[in-house]
C-alpha cells in the first residue's frame, strides 16, 4: 500500500507498460470513404487517443458507417485519489440464502410496487417476478420468499395497507420516472406515512430505480437503495442478512 500522498497513475495496458492501447467502436452518420476515415480519426483523437488507427470502416445502413479504431489513450487515472468503499461482503449464494432463511421458521414476506404516478414496472418486475431479468430469476423464485408485486401506480396509503395486511417484512418501492424530483418526494412521503402509522420500525424499506443509489435512499429515510443493474439475489441476500444475519 502506498501512502496517501503518493500518486499512482494507471494507464491502459495493451502490449507494453504504459502504451495506453484501447479500442473503440462506434457508428457515425456518414458514408465510408477517405473523408469518413479522417472523421473517425478525429473523433478518436477527440476522445484522447493518440495515433488512432481506423481498422474497420463498413457501411451499416443507407446513411451510417461502423468503425473500429485503435489508439494510445493519453489519459491516466490517479488511483490514490479514489475513495470507494468495497462492498463489505459479497451477496450470499442462492443456496446460502435458502439455508439461512430456514432459521426464520417462516417465509420472508416482501411487498413491492411502483408508487405514485409511476407506471414503469420494469425494475420491480425484474426484482420480484419469477422471470426476473437477463436470466436472473426474481424474488418469487426463492422458496424462502413470499413475494407480492402490486404493480404500477400504487398509492403510498394502499401500499401501507397491503403491507400491514400481508404482514410484510420488507417493502420494495420502485421509482423510475424522475420528473421534477417527484421520485424523491413520493419516496419520502412513504417513510413519513409508515412512521405516522407506527410500523416504520417493523419493516425494512428498500428503494430502487435507475436514479437511485444507496446514499440517496438512506437520506430519504429508507434502509437501503438499489441502483441500475441490481440483481434479485443481491436484494434477497440483503433481506436475509437483515432478518437473520450472515451464514
Amino acid at each position, binding site marked *: 500500500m502506498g501512502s496517501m500522498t503518493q500518486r499512482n497513475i494507471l494507464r491502459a495496458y495493451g502490449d507494453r507498460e504504459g502504451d495506453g492501447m484501447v479500442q473503440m467502436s462506434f*457508428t457515425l452518420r456518414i458514408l465510408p470513404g477517405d473523408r469518413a476515415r479522417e472523421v473517425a480519426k478525429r473523433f478518436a483523437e477527440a476522445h484522447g487517443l493518440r495515433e488512432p488507427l481506423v481498422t474497420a470502416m463498413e457501411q*451499416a445502413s*443507407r446513411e451510417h458507417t*461502423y468503425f473500429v479504431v485503435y489508439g494510445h489513450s493519453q489519459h491516466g487515472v490517479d488511483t490514490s485519489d479514489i475513495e470507494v468503499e468495497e462492498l463489505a461482503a459479497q451477496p450470499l449464494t442462492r443456496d446460502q440464502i435458502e439455508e439461512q432463511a430456514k432459521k426464520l421458521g417462516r417465509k420472508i414476506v416482501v411487498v413491492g410496487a411502483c408508487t405514485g404516478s409511476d407506471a414503469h414496472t*420494469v425494475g420491480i418486475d425484474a426484482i420480484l417476478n*419469477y422471470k426476473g431479468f437477463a*436470466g436472473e430469476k426474481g424474488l418469487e423464485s426463492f422458496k424462502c420468499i413470499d413475494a407480492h408485486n402490486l404493480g*404500477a401506480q400504487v398509492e403510498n396509503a394502499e401500499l401501507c395497507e397491503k403491507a400491514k395486511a400481508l404482514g410484510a417484512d420488507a417493502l420494495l418501492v420502485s421509482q*423510475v420516472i424522475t420528473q421534477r424530483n417527484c421520485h424523491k418526494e413520493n419516496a419520502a412521503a412513504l417513510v413519513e406515512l409508515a412512521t405516522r402509522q407506527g410500523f416504520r420500525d417493523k419493516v425494512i424499506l428498500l428503494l430502487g430505480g435507475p436514479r437511485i443509489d444507496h446514499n440517496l435512499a438512506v437520506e430519504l429515510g429508507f434502509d437501503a437503495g438499489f441502483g441500475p443493474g441490481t440483481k434479485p439475489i443481491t436484494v434477497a441476500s440483503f433481506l436475509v442478512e437483515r432478518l437473520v444475519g450472515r451464514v
Partner: protein
Amino acid sequence: MTTVPVEQEKVEACRAFAADIADDVQRFIDRHTTVGVERTVARAYGVVGADAEGTPLANALVDRIHKAGQVGRGVAYHLGRALCEGAASVQEAAEMLAFSEAADFGPGPSAAEARGAIEAATREAIARIDSARDEREANKAAHRVGTAPLKYVIVATGNIYDDAVQAKAAGFAGADIVAVIRATAQSLLDYVPEGPTTEGYGGTYATQENFRIIRRAADEATRDTGTYLAQTNYSSGLCMSEIAWMAAVERLDMLLNDAMYGILFRDINMQRTFIDQYFSRRIIARSGIVINTGEDNYLTTADAVEKAHTVLASQFINEAFARRAGLREELMGLGHAFEINPWLEDSLLFELAQAQLVRQIFDRHPIKWMPPTKFKTGDIFHSHVHDAMFNLVGITTGQSIALLGMFSEAVHTPLLMDRYLSLKSARYIFTAARHLGDEIQWKPGGIVESRAREVLDKAHALLREVERETLWDAIGRGAFGDVKRTRTGGKGYSGVVARHPEYLNPILEVLERSSS
C-alpha cells in the same frame, strides 16, 4: 441430411395426448368469452378512437356492457341491437352504448335480428383482413424472399420514429424480419394505447399507428433492397386478440403468440389466456400470419438440459391449440432456444440434438430458433462468439427463423452497430456452413442420438401425465418453466365471462367456417 432417430409411434402418441389436452381446454373456450375478445370484435366492426384520457372507445363500450352484466351476449349483439333501434352506424351505436343514458342493456330484440342488422359490417370486417392479406402476399410475390434460416432482428428504441430508422438500417444490413420489441409491461395493460408513441421503457408500445409506421418503413426497405422485409410484433398479454386484429389489417407478417406464455411469465389468468389465444389465432389463421410461440422462455427460468423436454411437450400442445384455431402447420413457428450453459462439456452437442429433434418432428413448421440470453454477460466479445455457435447450430439443423443474438444482450437494447455485426456474423456462418447438415451423420448411439432419444422419451412421459391431470392442474403444479399458476389467479380473470345461450359473434363464426 443429418438426422437423429425419431420413433414415429412415440411422436404420434405425443400428438394424441396433446389433442386430448387441448380438447379439454377447447370445450371450456367454446363456452366463454372475454372483455378482450369483445373489444376485438368491436374494433373489427369499426369502433375507433379514444377519449381525452386515452381510453379507447372499444374499452369504454365493453366496460359498460360488462358493468351491466351483459358481455355474455356478445358485443355484436349490443351493436346490432342499437342498429336495429336506429343508430346510423356502428361507431354511433358504440358511442351511444358507451356513454348515453339511453343505452338499454335489458331485454331486447332476438339475436337473429341483431345479427341481421350487423351483417354488412361483418362482411366488411372480414374483407378488411382478406384485402390486407392479399396486399401482403402480392408484395412478397413481387420481391425476393430470404432463404431459411430467415434472419430476424429486434429494434427497441422506445421511439417509433427511431425504430423506423433502425428497421430500415436492419433491412439494408440483410435482415429478413424486423420485430419492434414492446414497452415493458404492455402485456399487462388491459387496453391498447392509441396513436404514435415516442416514449417507452425497454421497447416501444404496440399501437395500430405504430404498426403502420413500421410497415411503411419496412416497405421502403423492401423496395430499396429488393428483398422483402417482414414485420413482427406481439399478440400476447391482456390484449392478445386486439393486437392480432390490428396486425392482420396492418399487414404484419408474424406475431409472437403462445397459448401459455402469458399465464406462465406474465401471470395472466389462464382462463383468460386460453380464450384470448383462440380468438387471436382464428384471426391470425385467416390473415395468413406466422405465429412464433414462446417455449424458448421455459429455458430462461428452468434448466435447459434438465427441462428440454418441457419445450417439446409444450410445442405439441401449442400445435394442438393452433390446429383447433384453424392454423395450418406452415403458420406455426414453434419456438425453442439455445440456452444451455455454454461452459458445460458437450453443450454444443446437446444443442444440436435438441434443435435437430424439433426440426424433424415439426417438419412443415417454420421453427423459430432463439439465441442465448441467460448466460450472456457484459463481455460483448465473448457474447459474439456465443452467438456464432448458435448460428452454426441453426444452419446445421435447418432452423426456419433465426432470431439473431446481439453481443450487447444483457447490456442495452441493440444499437445500430450491434445489429449490423450480428447480421454480418449470421451471413458469414449461414454461407460458410450452408450444407454442413447435409454432409454429416451422427455417430450411432453417440451423444447426439442418445440426447434426442432422451428428450422425446421425457416429453412423451410428461404429456401422458398432463393428459391425465389436465392442463389446468399441470400448470398449477409448475410443469412448464417451473412456474405455478392457479385457475382463478392472475391478471384479467374478472374479464372472463360465460357465453349466454344466444351469444352472438358473427365474425368468429365466419372465421370458424374458413380454414387457413
